[in-house]
C-alpha cells in the first residue's frame, strides 16, 4: 500500500515517540496536526504533555526546545514555515548550534527542528522560500532535506537519534507524494549522499523536491541518448563530497539543481568544493540551476516563470553535452 509523505512522517514520529519517552513534539498547533497535518492524531495517543501546542513565539519555543534538550529531553520542534525560522535564528545560530562547542564537549543539544519549505502554488513571498543555505553556513547545525516519503522516514529516524541539532526540511510539494514504505525500512545514515539514478554522461546533483524533477529530466534526456546520473544529497550539512567526486570522475560534467535562489545557494558551495576536489576530472564548467534573484510572487503564472524545473535542468545538461 502506498502512503503519503505526511502519513509516513507521522508514522516515523509515532514510532520514535513510542520508542523513546524523552521525545516531545513542540510547536504551534502541533496537537491539531501542525500546519500540514503531519502530527495529526498523535496527541490522542501520546497525550497533550508530549504533543504540546505553543504560543506563536518562534524565538522562545526554539530556546525552550534547546534548553529542554540540554536538560534531558529530545524535542522535535515544528517551525511552521522555514520563512519564520528568521525569528528563531538567534537561538539556532548563536545557541543551539554552539553549546556543544562552547562547553568543550560537555553538553549536547539533541533536537530536531522540523520545518517545511519551497513553493507549491500561491503561497507568495513569505511562505515559499528555500532558505537552507543560511543554515549550512553555521558550524554545529546538521541540515537534512529528504527527497521522498521513504527517504524522509529513514532520514528523520537518524536525525532524531543524533545528539545534535538538526534542521529537517520537508518540501511542501512532496507532502502529497505517495510511496510504499517497505516493512524493513530503517534509519538512513546522515552525511551520505545517494545515487538516485546511475548514468555516465552528466551528473545532476539535487536534493529535496528537486530530486524528482532531476529524475524526470534524466528520463527525458535518456530518450535523446544522454545518460544522466542523479545524486540526492540528502544531507546538506555535512556534505558528502566523496560521493560527488566519485560520480564526477565518471561523468566529467556537473549540473547542480535546487529550488533556492541560485545566488549564494547550496549549489555555490558544492561547486566550489568540487572545483577544488575534482578540477582535473571536469571537462566543462560546473552549471547551476536555481531560482532567479527575485522573491516568489503570488500569481501562478509568475511563480512558474521563476521556479526552476525539468526544462531548466534539461537545458543545462544539453548545454554540457552539445
Amino acid at each position, binding site marked *: 500500500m502506498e502512503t503519503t509523505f505526511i502519513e509516513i512522517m507521522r508514522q516515523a514520529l509515532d514510532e520514535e515517540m513510542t520508542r523513546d519517552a524523552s521525545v516531545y513534539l513542540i510547536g504551534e498547533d502541533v496537537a491539531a496536526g501542525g500546519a500540514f497535518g503531519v502530527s495529526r492524531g498523535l496527541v490522542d495517543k501520546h497525550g497533550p504533555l508530549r504533543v504540546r501546542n505553543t504560543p506563536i513565539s518562534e524565538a522562545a519555543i526554539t530556546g*525552550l526546545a534547546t534548553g529542554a534538550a*540540554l536538560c534531558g*529531553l529530545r524535542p522535535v520542534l515544528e517551525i511552521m514555515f522555514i520563512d519564520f525560522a528568521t525569528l528563531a535564528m538567534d537561538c539556532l545560530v548563536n545557541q543551539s548550534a554552539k553549546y556543544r*562547542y562552547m562547553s*568543550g564537549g560537555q553538553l549536547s543539544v539533541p533536537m530536531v527542528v522540523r520545518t517545511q519549505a519551497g513553493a507549491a502554488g500561491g503561497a507568495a513571498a513569505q511562505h515559499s522560500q528555500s532558505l537552507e543555505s543560511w543554515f549550512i553556513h553555521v558550524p554545529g547545525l546538521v541540515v537534512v532535506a529528504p527527497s521522498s516519503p521513504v527517504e524522509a522516514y529513514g532520514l528523520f529516524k537518524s536525525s532524531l537519534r543524533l545528539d545534535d541539532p538538526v534542521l529537517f526540511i520537508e518540501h511542501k510539494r512532496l507532502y502529497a507524494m505517495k510511496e510504499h514504505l517497505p516493512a524493513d525500512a530503517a534509519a538512513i545514515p546522515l552525511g551520505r549522499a545517494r545515487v538516485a539514478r546511475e548514468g555516465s554522461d552528466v551528473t545532476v546533483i539535487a536534493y529535496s523536491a528537486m530530486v524528482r524533477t532531476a529524475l524526470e529530466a534524466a528520463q527525458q534526456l535518456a530518450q535523446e541518448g544522454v545518460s544522466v546520473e542523479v545524486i540526492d544529497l540528502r544531507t546538506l550539512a555535512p556534505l558528502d563530497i566523496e560521493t560527488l567526486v566519485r560520480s564526477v570522475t565518471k561523468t566529467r560534467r556537473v549540473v547542480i539543481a535546487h529550488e533556492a535562489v541560485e545566488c549564494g545557494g547550496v549549489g555555490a558551495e558544492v561547486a566550489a568544493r568540487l572545483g577544488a576536489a575534482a578540477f582535473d576530472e571536469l571537462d566543462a564548467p560546473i552549471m547551476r540551476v536555481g531560482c532567479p534573484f527575485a522573491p516568489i510572487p503570488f500569481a501562478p503564472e509568475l511563480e512558474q516563470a521563476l521556479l526552476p524545473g525539468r526544462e531548466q535542468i534539461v537545458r543545462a545538461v544539453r548545454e554540457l553535452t552539445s
Partner: protein
Amino acid sequence: MQRKNDPGERVAAMLRIRRFEEQCILLSKDGQFPGHYHVYIGQEATAVAACAELGTDDFVFSNWRNHGHLLARGAAPDRMMAEILGKAGGYARGKSGTLHMAVRELGVPATSALVGGSLPLATGAALACKRQGRGVVVAFFGDAALEEGACYEAMILASLWKLPILFVCENNSIPPAQRQRGQYTSSTLPAAQLVDVPQALQIRTEAVDGADADALAECFDRLVAEVRSEGTPRFVEVRCTRWPGNFPLWPELPCGQWQLDWAFGQSPDRADLATWLEQSDPLLLYLRKIVAAGGLTREQVQALDERARAEMAGAVRFALDSPFPAPEEAYQHVRAEQGATL
C-alpha cells in the same frame, strides 16, 4: 555548596567571589587574557543566597556576568580562571572563555552572552524538570533582558505551562536611594517598575534589596521553596547599585583591592567608592552587621578572607601554569563524534 544560614559560610562565599573577580581584573590588566569580561563585584549576595537553596537536580542559567553564579554553585575557581585565560585546564579547555562558561556536572548547562538569550533556554530546562519530576531552574539575567522580545515569550510559556522556574532579574543600575522605594522609572523600559511586566503575565513577583544579604537569603529561601512546591514560576527583581569599578568599559579596581578595614572604620580615598561601600556593598554591610551582632568575630572574618585570597592566588597560579590547548582542538566538538554518528 554552602550550608544555608551559616554566617561564616555566607561570608566565605561572598569573599571568594570578590577575591576571584579582583584577580580576574588584575590578570586582564596584566594582559593575561584578551577580550572583554564582566565582574560580579557588588552583586555577590544574590548568587550566594540563590544558590544556597539549590540541590543537585536543579539548574542554573546565567549570562556574561556569570563568575559569581558559577562560584556560588560550586565551580572550582582554578578551572574557571584557566577557562578565562583560555587554557586547557578550563572547563571547556578554552573554548568558552569568560562569556559562555558552563559546568555540566553542576547543573549549569548554559551561559548565554546574548541579552535575554538564556530565558527561553531556562524555560525549556524547567519543562524538562517538570516532565522528569525533579529539579527547579534559577535563571539569572540583567535588567536589559526585559528589553528583548525573547524574554516576554519565555515568561509567557513559563506562566502558561506552569513551569518551575525562578526568574532572577539582577537590576544593577539602581541609585541607592531608590533601592528600597517602591516606585522608580527605569531609563530604558517604559514601566513604572520592572516587576510590573511579569505581573501582567500572571507571574508572581517581588523586589528585594541586593545589598541586604539577610533579605536576599529570606527572599530566595521562600521563593525557591514556592517554585519547588507549587511548580509555578516566580520573578524577583534584585535591586543593586553598580560598583564604581564597573562603570568603565573595562572593569577597574578603584583604590586597589577591597579592604576588610573599610568595613571597620577606615575609608578609601575615592569618594564615589566610599559612598558605594557605605550604602550599597552587600559584603561590607553584612560583615558589619554580623560582627556587631556577634555572629562572627573580626578575627574570624579576617581568617576567612585570608583563606579566600590564598585560594584565588592558587587559582591564578593554576591558570597561569595550565598549558594552552593544542591548535587542533579548535576542530573538536563541532558536532557529535564526527564519523561515528554521521
